[in-house]
């Protein structure tokens, strides 16, 4: 199967320091790929390369088997790759609907917003992702939402814009157990609808629980790649620790 996104031999350095060094990684259609790594392993840099924020210094990016050049955020979006950064890009005082359509409102040709159409679509997305709280509606201001639900709104936005790949940068950081579980549920639901997810985390339990495949990044290189089914969370943790000690590619 042709990977949805493939990085071949991608390197990125800042000055003399390599943030990524010869990274080979691919994401298949409809899978959740968890990207694990310690602080400074290069996770954030990799996210930014995938999102088009950073251009790789060496190596190539392939989307659906075709090499892309001059990779940038607009192109990433054109290729239906939507990234949810840690700040989630939400306007807290605005309702859920406005946030889903932020900057890409449904309008008539005079620029007037079609509120009804937007609200219906937001409602449909929230149902589809099974927002559990019943006190929520598309009219609820985002500041009334829990952290997990906010991540959900950002994911819903990506879903609405037909993302084939949603990149989630540390989506469960700073969330309570219950909220993190909500986010993992959102991820599964989106995957079940055929969307690929690149799930970046340093929480091994979350990463293991939600993944189809796992990649561990270590000091800018791919330290390990494995199917989720082939190892337990405990084995993963042991592997992580030995990777961190440098045993894996000694």
């Amino acid at each position, binding site marked *: 199967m042709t990977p949805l996104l493939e990085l071949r031999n991608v390197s990125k350095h800042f000055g003399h320091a390599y943030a990524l060094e010869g990274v080979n990684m691919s994401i298949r259609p409809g899978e959740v790929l968890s990207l694990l790594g310690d602080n400074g392993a290069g996770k954030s840099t990799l996210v930014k390369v995938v999102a088009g924020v950073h251009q790789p210094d060496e190596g190539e990016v392939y989307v659906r088997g075709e090499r892309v050049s001059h990779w940038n955020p607009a192109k990433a979006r054109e290729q239906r790759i939507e990234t949810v950064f840690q*700040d989630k890009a939400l306007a807290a005082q605005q309702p859920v609907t406005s946030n889903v359509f*932020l900057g890409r409102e449904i309008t008539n040709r005079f620029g007037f917003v079609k509120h009804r159409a937007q609200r219906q679509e937001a409602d449909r997305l929230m149902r589809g992702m099974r927002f559990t709280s019943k006190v929520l509606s598309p009219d609820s201001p985002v500041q009334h939402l829990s952290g997990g639900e906010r991540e959900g709104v950002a994911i819903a936005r990506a879903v609405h814009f037909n993302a084939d790949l949603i990149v989630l940068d540390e989506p469960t950081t700073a969330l309570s157990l219950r909220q993190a579980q909500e986010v993992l549920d959102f991820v599964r639901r989106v995957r079940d609808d055929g969307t690929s997810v690149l799930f970046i985390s340093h929480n091994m339990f979350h990463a293991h629980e939600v993944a189809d495949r796992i990649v561990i990044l270590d000091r800018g290189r791919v330290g390990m790649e494995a199917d989720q089914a082939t190892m337990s969370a405990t084995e993963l943790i042991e592997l992580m620790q030995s990777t961190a000690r440098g045993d894996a590619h000694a």
Partner: protein
Amino acid sequence: MALQASQPTERQEVPEEGASSPPRWRVQVDRHRAFLSSLVFFVVMLLAFMITSPAVFLSTGIYLSVFASSLPLVLIVAVPLVFVFVSGEIDVSFPSVVGIAAYAFAASYAQGLDPFAATLFAIVVGAFVGFINGCIVTYVGLPSLVVTLGMLFLLRGLVQVLSDGEATSLIGLHDTLFEQIFMAKWAWLPAPMAWATLLAVLGLALFSAHKFGAHVRAIGDNSAAANQMGIKVRRTRVLAFVYVGAAGGVAGVLAVTINSTFYPTTGDGLLLLVLAAVFVGGTPVWGGTGTVAGAIVGAATVGFIETGIISAGLTGNYTQLFYGLVILLSLVGHRISNKSALTR
């Protein structure tokens, strides 16, 4: 268990089984809370006036005279100003924008320019000032309060210099088509009030139904997020300033035509009135949220205060005192009402 129970739980954390979504009217009330509280304030104030001076406030004459006073000018400027506030900025240069636009209109008309063309010229001058304000704020990166305060003095000084401190009579406009459209009455409604109403409706539509309003709210709420989602943050901010400037241009022309005279001080009195209208209307200063409908009610509130005070038997000396009181009271009131909405 005991330990868990003693811990505070987040409100949205545990949705109770069977909890239903709030009734629709409740949602609507919450959404328009600021507007509704300013409306209640206005009605209560009007009732108070009716009780204290029924002879005046139970006749229609008072309402028409308020419509012909500064109310249309306040309304015209207050509505666009909401956009600037909501975008997270402030603009206090409008009294002088009204002044310079009034001068542009009067001087170009005195030079023989057609009054309609002179009107257009005045609006362009106002919009240009707004453009300069917006560019300095967004591209040079200075705080809008300082920039527009500077502009307030700069433009007033310019008006003084250009006009030589002299008033200009526009008596030649009598019995012209221009007078019919901008100065006379449309049926019973004074023309300036009719224009102000039209522009207020336009402002309402832009704010609540157009993507410009949505973008302004998003920018004032979280400009980084707006930028990330592809909203042209700087351009939208500049446009909000241009909108206030252009409105100041319209107000400048009307200010001159209402009195048939240009004064070098034209617009000076608007600063307090317009800011009061926006604040009384329930638009806070922190950006991201505000209400044009509230500002319209706020303008009406402000418009009736002076008349009410005088007809209640107090002297004009009391007006400033009351404006200040009303501004502070309404700010506190909106704050309390907003808090109760958030913590319920």
